[in-house]
């Protein structure tokens, strides 16, 4: 079970609480976690990753275990503490004014 924390605007959009719990089939990577998130909440498609390229949107960041994973390869394994549910995977709206 993976714990995913969403920024407030995406929580409102998906009508979920701060934290979403996901079961991810196979290896837990950023790609498989986000695929599972979007499968359960289709309204989040395109808000975190570009519809076509699947690249992270410029002002979205991914954090876990005190590390910035935003520029890690999408198929790299997530930290064990995230895969066991000990630590959450954070989707963050970047500090960019507004």
């Amino acid at each position: 079970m993976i714990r995913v924390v969403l920024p407030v605007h995406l929580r409102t959009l998906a009508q979920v609480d701060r934290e979403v719990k996901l079961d991810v089939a196979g290896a837990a990577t950023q790609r498989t976690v986000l695929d599972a998130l979007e499968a359960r909440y289709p309204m989040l498609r395109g808000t975190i990753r570009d519809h076509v390229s699947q690249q992270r949107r410029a002002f979205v960041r991914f954090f876990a275990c005190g590390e910035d994973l935003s520029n890690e390869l999408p198929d790299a394994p997530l930290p064990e503490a995230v895969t066991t549910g000990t630590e959450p995977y954070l989707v963050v709206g970047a500090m960019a004014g507004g």
Partner: protein
Amino acid sequence: MSRVRVLVGTRKGAFILTSDGKREDWNVSGPEFGGWEIYHLKGSPADPNRIYASQSSGWFGQIMQRSNDGGKTWNPVDNRLVYDGDVGTHLWYDGTPRPWEFKRIWHLEPSLTDPDTVYAGAEDAALFRTSDGGQTWEELAGLRHHDSASYWAPGAGGMCLHTILLDASHPERIYTAISAAGAFRSDDAGKTWRPINQGLKSEGIPDPNAEVGHCVHRIAMHPSRPDVLFMQKHWDVMRSDNAGESWQEVSGNLPTDFGFPIDVHAHEPETIYVVPITSDSQHFPPDGRLRVYRSRTGGNEWEALTNGLPQRDCYVNVLRDAMCVDALDPCGVYFGTSGGQVYASADAGDSWAPIVRDLPPVVSVEVQTLP
């Protein structure tokens, strides 16, 4: 008694303002989608309870929203607005080719007859359509594949398709306007397009009379005379009497002919409204006086409408989608400002009063006239 429902898009959410036919006492509800930019909301002429909204954010991109109950509740619909095929390139500010990149939907135009069909104008300029109430979107790519498209360039606000006009008497006819490419018309439901900019003159481009490259800000039409079009260009107020085949300037005695919105009285096709703005580099009213100008002669002869509008120290702007008219008699006129005010006139512009004064900067104002 009839009612009106004013749909206001702002930089930080949507607001719905309602009143009875007197248009004196108003209820303000919102924000919906608080914190998000709402470039436009518009209701279906065929089903006023069906409203579509463009919700966007620099962080999280584009969301499309739909209400089936007049804006009481909303549900996101499909937001996959993807350019068809090879995206190609347009010109960037420095003159170099730049691939099309989707940024947001500026304008929504529901079909005149089918609540499930909506046209959506995008930045970077493209026209999308849904025919299933927003469950899926397709690009009408003939516009972006026009021969001139590789020479289109953004205006200061981006390369946006901001105006979509549908013609009830010619169901296959669609008008669009793009900053800064100009006006285009399709007579085959969006398959093919041609520029309709003859007569426009823009000093800010290398050939002032070029076929494309004009910064058209807004086009308006009265449904009873669909071949007569009125245009607020970057500079110049223009008129066409032949469905855009040619244009003549009708700026007349306006204090400045720069501005963004233009609209037509609901019952008098020769009565039109603009909001003159000082210049392209000073986006505020001349002399700090907020004045709507009305022409009852289809242009050239203009009168200032000031009653109830601030006539000193006013330095707001009124954007292209932020003025509209209702269908009541007398005709109601509405506009919103970058200062967060929404003004209404229940007497065709003779007098004005603010409905609300302190919203976020207003991007768009639409009104629905309800039974």
